[in-house]
């Protein structure tokens, strides 16, 4: 009797041990959308073809739990800057990591952007890359991205007509493993035309902690608040990529790459 109890206990322990290593984590759900920018609404598909699992999601910025709604049909978003977070749960598996994307309404109509020449390997889809409304794909080889490796990137934005502008949005990529960092500083000016000369007048600056180490690959919208009382149809944006990749990264000391896929003004 005593022996049987001992054996039983050992068998149970043995089974536990044998199983412990083979409890796998689920992969994150497959989030599909044409762009994170939308005119009136965005429709986001989540996929996870694995029986016995459920995708839970949130739109309030919080980490999804099993108490949050289960994904059943495409999620329609109408409000700008909405973050969709999704996570898969299933019996016998560890829950997945969370995937997330933030969706933005497109801004004022832009007639043209004139920008520095991007790096040869990352030229996007041509002159309209930053204004085609397509962005938010984290694969940096995707033709929505312009890649720059220089100390300063200058972009001139020409609107269809003079307007009051309150905010500038730059949509960038962070993938430090691929040497792609946030820029460290952004300055925005408007062009002031005088009869004999053109003046740049400062409208706003944003400074970012670009050298903070982070291994997450993600898109990020950088919002630069502007003096909204001035009417203009021409902005000049000066972007300063990270000048020195920090210690602890294989690229330490060199210039960080800047990847940009969309520019919007509001």
């Amino acid at each position, binding site marked *: 009797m005593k022996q049987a109890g001992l054996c039983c*206990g050992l068998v149970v*322990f043995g089974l536990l041990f044998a*199983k412990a290593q083979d409890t796998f984590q689920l*992969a994150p759900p497959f989030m599909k959308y044409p762009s994170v920018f939308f005119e009136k609404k965005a429709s986001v598909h989540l996929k*996870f073809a*694995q029986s016995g699992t459920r995708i839970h999601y949130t739109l309030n910025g919080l980490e999804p739990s099993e108490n949050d709604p289960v994904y059943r049909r495409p999620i329609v978003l109408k409000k700008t800057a909405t973050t969709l977070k999704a996570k898969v749960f299933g*019996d*016998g598996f560890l829950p997945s990591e969370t995937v997330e994307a933030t969706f933005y309404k497109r801004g004022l109509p832009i007639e043209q952007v004139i920008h520095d020449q991007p790096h040869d390997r990352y030229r996007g889809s041509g002159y309209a890359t930053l204004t085609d409304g397509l962005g938010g794909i984290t694969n940096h080889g995707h033709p929505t991205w312009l890649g720059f490796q220089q100390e300063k990137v200058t972009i001139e934005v020409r609107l269809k007509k003079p307007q009051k502008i309150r905010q500038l949005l730059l949509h960038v990529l962070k993938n430090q493993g691929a040497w792609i960092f946030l820029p460290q500083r952004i300055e925005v000016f408007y062009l002031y035309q005088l009869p004999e000369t053109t003046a740049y007048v400062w409208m706003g600056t944003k400074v970012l902690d670009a050298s903070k180490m982070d291994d997450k690959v993600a898109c990020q919208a950088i919002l630069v608040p502007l003096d909204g009382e001035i009417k203009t149809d021409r902005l000049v944006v000066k972007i300063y990529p990270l000048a020195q990749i920090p210690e602890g990264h294989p690229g330490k000391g060199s210039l960080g790459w800047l990847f940009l896929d969309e520019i919007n003004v509001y």
Partner: protein
Amino acid sequence: MHRRNFIKNTALGMAGALYIPEIMAKTDTILGHNNKRYRINTRWSQADVARNPVNDCHEMVQDQKGRILLLTNETKNNVLIYDKNGKLLDAWGTEYPGAHGLTLFNENGTDVLFICDNNRHQVIKTTLDGKVLMTMDYPKESEKYDKAEDYVPTETAIAPNGDIYVADGYGKDYIIQYDAHGRYIRHFGGRGDEAGNLLNAHGVCMDLRDQTKPSLIATSRQENAFKRYDLAGNYLETIVLPGAWVCRPVIRGDYLYAAVLQSNSRQWTESGFVTILDKNNKVVSNLAGSEPTYTGDTPDEMYQTIKAFQYPHDVCVDDEENLYVAQWNSGKTYPFKLEPVV
């Protein structure tokens, strides 16, 4: 009852009582779909890591004796030879720093190996115990290569007549055909915009399932596809596998098996799985991947669903239909074994 024993038994009993519900709730992890489902064993290898370490585990084959051979770019032992239960029987090879492709060919009753070495830019034919029989340098005769470094062979396939097809998967993506003595015959594939071109020609294999029409299947990994050619290199068809970075095709019975290095939707994040196609090239099962579905004749985009693998690089199917999965860049992990669930 002695008090000491009583405590011991109680403790074990309690642990058992606590954990039993969890065990009963938990089922074994079964991977795959339809008639191709497997139970995974991540601790198949009994090799001692101190004596017989591995680096990238690139490819595996089974020999006539039923032994499982693994090729790794760890130059302490480039080839590890196991029995089917994971017991290490033998190890050899210290001169293959770029060991990548391993193909076994039954040459008039004797098994021989073809090793592709990325770093040496060579294909080396050996006996099963490592004696070098032939070394093939870069194919100057093709007039496509100026120097050895342009040629980075990843895989070979041997035709029944002994012709050797080499996939230059990390070089210029040509398939180069030689006769059994290593004399250049022709090349095909290569990069470009035509249907018969290849992008990352990572693998190549003979397809003898249709005895009347033997053919060759090459991998176009970055294109997420396989491409079929006749034995003279004429392009026949493309088998598209959206989302799947397929490594070499491995044919056994009516089925084609392939390790999928990663999901296209989650690149370079350990998002691999294993795919299995039937003889009509239809995906029937994805091990640790999405359930195969089709829109018309095209598979829907595939992706990893269970993180059972990191970067699977090859599948070996043994004579009892067990699978062995070797992985690249996956923490120097030994291969996993997967047993069919009937």
